[in-house]
């Protein structure tokens, strides 16, 4: 009888349920069961199932933030301890798409899934795109930790990992609207930088979806992905 999720009425039980006595709970249980049945007839969907048409990610172009975010000085340190400016890094790969994620190496839940996506697509993007993962926990993630993380995910040379100064990385996150005060609340976001345009993908797509979206963006930005060499 409860096996129904009521569209638009999800909090009904939470708001009106009465606590305390068992009798009250039983009474409420009967009342709500009746209500569920009525609403079930009106329009409901099975609970706990994945909504088949619900998109697993959203993608949109970010306007007017590219220059602000990527041309000013954000000093980064790569996994070998070398210093690099983000603006130089982006300019260096102007002829290729740059796929960028914010992660941290001790992250348990979201980052491994995000990094596993890059691990999966990197083989299809050799010579065609640069992959960048920037730590949002730079005080913990030193170059050694990034090296270990890169090794764990079999990163190839076109996938690079960066750390840096906490304040610089917070500023960068704020500029592209991904900053959370607590890193444990960070969202799964992947950025695509193509031909001076910035796209933002929110969510956790499949490998096939990611490559298809990249193809669409390439078409839209008219950027060739052939290897510069």
């Amino acid at each position, binding site marked *: 009888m409860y096996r129904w999720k009521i569209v638009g009425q999800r909090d009904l*039980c*939470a708001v009106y349920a009465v606590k305390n006595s068992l009798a009250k709970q039983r009474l409420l249980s009967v009342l709500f069961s009746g209500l569920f049945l009525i609403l079930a007839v009106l329009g409901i969907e099975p*609970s706990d199932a994945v909504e088949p048409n619900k998109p697993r990610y959203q993608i949109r172009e970010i306007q007017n933030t590219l220059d602000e975010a990527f041309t000013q000085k954000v000093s980064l340190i790569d996994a070998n301890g070398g210093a690099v400016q983000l603006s130089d890094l982006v300019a260096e790969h102007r002829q290729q798409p740059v796929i960028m994620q914010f992660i*941290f190496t001790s992250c348990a*839940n979201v980052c491994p899934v995000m990094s596993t996506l890059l691990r*999966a697509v990197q083989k299809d993007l050799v010579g065609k795109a640069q992959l960048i993962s920037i730590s949002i926990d730079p005080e913990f993630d030193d170059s050694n930790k990034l090296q270990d993380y890169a090794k764990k995910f079999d990163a190839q040379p076109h996938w690079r990992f960066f750390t840096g100064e906490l304040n610089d990385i917070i500023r960068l996150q704020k500029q592209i609207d991904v900053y959370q005060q607590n890193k*444990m609340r960070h969202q799964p976001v992947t950025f695509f930088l193509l031909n001076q345009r910035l796209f933002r993908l929110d969510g956790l797509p499949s490998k096939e979806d990611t490559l298809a979206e990249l193809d669409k963006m390439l078409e839209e930005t008219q950027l060739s992905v052939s290897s510069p060499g």
Partner: protein
Amino acid sequence: MFLRESLICSMIKATTFLLLLFLDLSKPTLANDFQIGKRFYEKGLLADSTPVSVILQGDIKANGHLINCASCHRSSGYGDGEGGNYVPPITGPVLFNEYAPERQHIFRNLYQDVQTPATRAQVHDLKQRAAYNEQLLNRAITSGINSDDEQLSLSMPRFMLDKATLKGLTVYLKSLGAQNLDSLPKIGVEPDILHFATIFTPDVNPAEKAAIMAVFNAYLKRKNFNTIAAQKKPNYSSGYKSDFVYAQRQWQLHEWQLTGSAEQWPKQLAAFYQAKSVFSVLGGKGQRWQAIHDFCEQRSLPCLFPNTPLPVTAKAGEYTLYFSKGLQGEADSLATHLQSLDDVSPVVQIYRANSVGEVAARFLDNRLSKKQSSKITSSDLIITEQQRLGAAFWEPLLAQKKTLVLWLDRDDFDTLPSLSSINLQQASIFVSASLIDLKNKPLSPQRYNKALSFIWPWALPNHEPKRLYRARAWMRSRGVPMTHELEQLNTFFVLNVVDYAMHDLLDRFSREYSIEIIERITENALNPGLYRSMSLGPKQRFAVKKYSILNAPLLIPENSNR
């Protein structure tokens, strides 16, 4: 005749016993299954020790090294809300019982540090499903079909499990969250009382201890008063909080004062623990913490943020969380600083024999020698335990072109002559601010000479986080005299963190889950104001990571007349 029969009988018995023993050993035992399940859950390894194959998001191939049960559902099995990605609990009582849309289920999950509206909506979703059994669990893990024949989210990886691992995993999952009224007292949870302990080593002076205990007593008094008030009117909340009043308990703190040498402490700790099990150890103070760290790890006992200059840094523990790496962190940051300078005169490390300063000197040595390109030379000047310091000791040293690193306590440091009266063209001096207790005992303004630099683990002076003012106000309003601000504010932080963690924990009394919550919330605005920033993450054990090297004149209080 009788003897022979008896002998034959004994031989038959022995053979039967050995045969039974062999048969028993040859089949996997419950303990074996548990270990197989635990290893799969935490490391993604199958029964044959190979990493499990995983499919993520429908088409991403991975393995158990990259993704495993514990990475998302956490070691406790109580799930997570990281990144707005709600991961439900999979403890035994949750999985192997029917799940009905009861308010307790919904509201309990709402206590988690869930973040986004989407996540909250997920928690609010009215769900129901049948109880899992081994077969249904296998289907969920391998094919992503839940116990009600519905498809699970693609964020739940699909694992290619074998029979032996599945059996082990079932046994292991049943053990997660399986606390009951009989087992809870063993972890310090009694029907009305939640037991905690704090530990002091013999080197802590009575004034420090009294200052720390004053904070504990004031906090617990208030906390217990509020708990009684909530329990007296169980229906006070218009929301759902009063549903969990039953989970609240009076907090009781046990003071574990250690005596004698460190070798004697394990026995003393075991005796304390046997007399009264506690849920966790809060704060405390001691110069050396190795024995206490080992005790907490062996007992799976959370040991939270002690005041110690020597945390165990060689191998991070599972159950012991520290403010910082202490003197190891100070030595590391000084080495980084020295290595960044163009010209460093030879380093002389000064410390007393058998003091914590000696350990700090070894940390610095190791760090300086690690960098092959480093040309910094280092030597030691060891002060014997009986030796008294004075001008005759310091003046020849200060006249040389040396980098002096002082790992000394305050009494020894105070023997350093006034630097303004000495020609200091040559020497530069680095001092551990924590060892000379500079936070609690500032120097007179005349002593802040530019030849002097401090290794500074705290927030920059006049740039402390705002919570410092709130914490000080809390102490004042509770009548706690602030005689040892550093230790007292640290204690206040520990109590706050544990209070928030217990609030989220509700009736899920799992020590592992309490640590997972603390890993998550430490970065929230709980910094007592002493540190520039504090944060933890999964398996991170040191909350403060950044130290500064501050030239002494920067530390002169703004209102002082030089």
